[in-house]
């Protein structure tokens, strides 16, 4: 743990999350109205999409972008296989629940990513703007793998696959992230200037209040949890550690810069708690939300925010430093 990790704990963004956790554990009635939470989540996605698009409109699209996209999509497809095996074996879940949880860990958490970007920028390692597109691309492949693992190729339930595919590709966060990304690319720095006061200046403050809410929700769900065993807790901490390390390493070896490598690690480490739960209610109603939401939202999410982002960031610095050092002596 270096100074920058410590710095995390004096950042208002992280401190508001801790406040939410504490308030919920103390059974305070503090609560953010849902319409507002939904609105903040839309705002954060629009803002991060715009910012990414503007950045790419400046830097252009090169091979690095394609490499990052490929790595991200591959991770989203493959992580569920690994996760499913662990969840069935060590976690002792049945096939259906293991598949549902695995889909969550293959997909990503937008807020974890956004928080990581803030922390990385504060540490002087900003990720590339294209990482927003990578995130959007990673949201959904995992859903398909997870369903496959849970159910095999057939579907007994009358859920039409086309319906599910539509739900998966046009779900609100994918559309908003990619739409805002495209708007950012089209309007560029100049067009963005007009709306920057709203989407840029307000960003961190909104993130504070949103994380306050996430802290409240995560802790409340934790306290109500029934179906969670110690084995599942171990997995909900182990998976982000392993996925984060593998993702960062792969990205560093593929030549991404420190910030982008760390961001890809965080995306691999994070677990969805918005898009995937909704898809699972539709496609795998037999799976228990008490398991997948509690693991992704109440254990993995806080673990990533409070600890793992710092670890992934440190690992990325070490690896990219070593590689470029190696490269420098060639």
């Amino acid at each position, binding site marked *: 743990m270096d100074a920058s990790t410590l710095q995390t704990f004096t950042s208002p963004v992280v401190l508001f999350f801790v406040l939410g956790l504490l308030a919920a554990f103390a059974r305070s009635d503090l609560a953010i109205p849902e319409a507002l939470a*939904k609105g903040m989540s839309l705002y954060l996605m629009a803002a991060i999409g715009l910012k990414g698009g503007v950045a790419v409109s400046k830097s252009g699209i090169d091979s690095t972008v394609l490499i990052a996209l490929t790595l991200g999509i591959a991770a989203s497809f493959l992580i569920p296989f690994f996760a499913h095996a662990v969840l069935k074996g060590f976690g002792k879940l049945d096939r259906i629940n293991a598949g549902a949880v695995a889909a969550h860990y293959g997909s990503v958490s937008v807020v974890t990513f956004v928080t990581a970007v803030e922390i990385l920028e504060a540490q002087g390692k900003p990720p590339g703007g294209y990482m927003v597109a990578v995130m959007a691309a990673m949201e959904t492949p995992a859903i398909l793998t997870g369903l496959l693992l849970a159910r095999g190729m057939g579907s007994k339930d009358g859920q039409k696959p086309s319906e599910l595919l539509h739900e998966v590709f046009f779900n609100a966060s994918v559309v908003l992230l990619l739409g805002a990304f495209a708007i950012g690319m089209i309007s560029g720095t100049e067009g963005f200037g007009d709306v920057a006061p709203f989407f840029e200046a307000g960003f961190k403050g909104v993130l504070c209040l949103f994380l306050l809410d996430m802290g409240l929700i995560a802790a409340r769900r934790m306290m109500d949890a029934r179906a969670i065993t110690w084995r599942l807790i171990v997995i909900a901490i182990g998976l982000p550690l392993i996925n984060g390390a593998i993702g960062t390493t792969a990205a560093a070896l593929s030549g991404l810069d420190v910030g982008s490598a760390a961001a890809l690690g965080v995306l691999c480490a994070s677990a969805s708690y918005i898009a995937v739960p909704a898809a699972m209610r*539709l496609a795998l109603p037999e799976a228990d939300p008490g398991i997948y939401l509690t693991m992704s939202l109440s254990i993995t999410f806080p673990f990533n925010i409070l600890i793992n982002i710092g670890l992934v960031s440190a690992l990325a610095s070490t690896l990219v430093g070593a590689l470029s050092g190696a490269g420098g002596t060639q």
Partner: protein
Amino acid sequence: MIETVVRKRIEILTDVALVGRVTDAIDRAEITGWTVTPVNSGKGRDGPWREERVMGTDKVFVLTVASQERANALAEELAPILTSHSLLLTMWDVEVIRGERF
């Protein structure tokens, strides 16, 4: 005196993600319409939950007014998903005005 006729009122508590399934079933039962109302929180076998719309896991009521016959058709339609998706369905007799519409 105004004339009233007796119809069934059916209320189904369902996850937001499943509303489309329920209203499709209502359409297939050839019922003239339906109305969706919000829900804040609740407690069931899995313990308490709060409305968590950000997470897409909240619930709503879908309510519909129909003739006895169509109400039965709807119940049959929904039967397969009632237990698997843990929907709560209650129905009872109500008087309606302009009964020819339902």
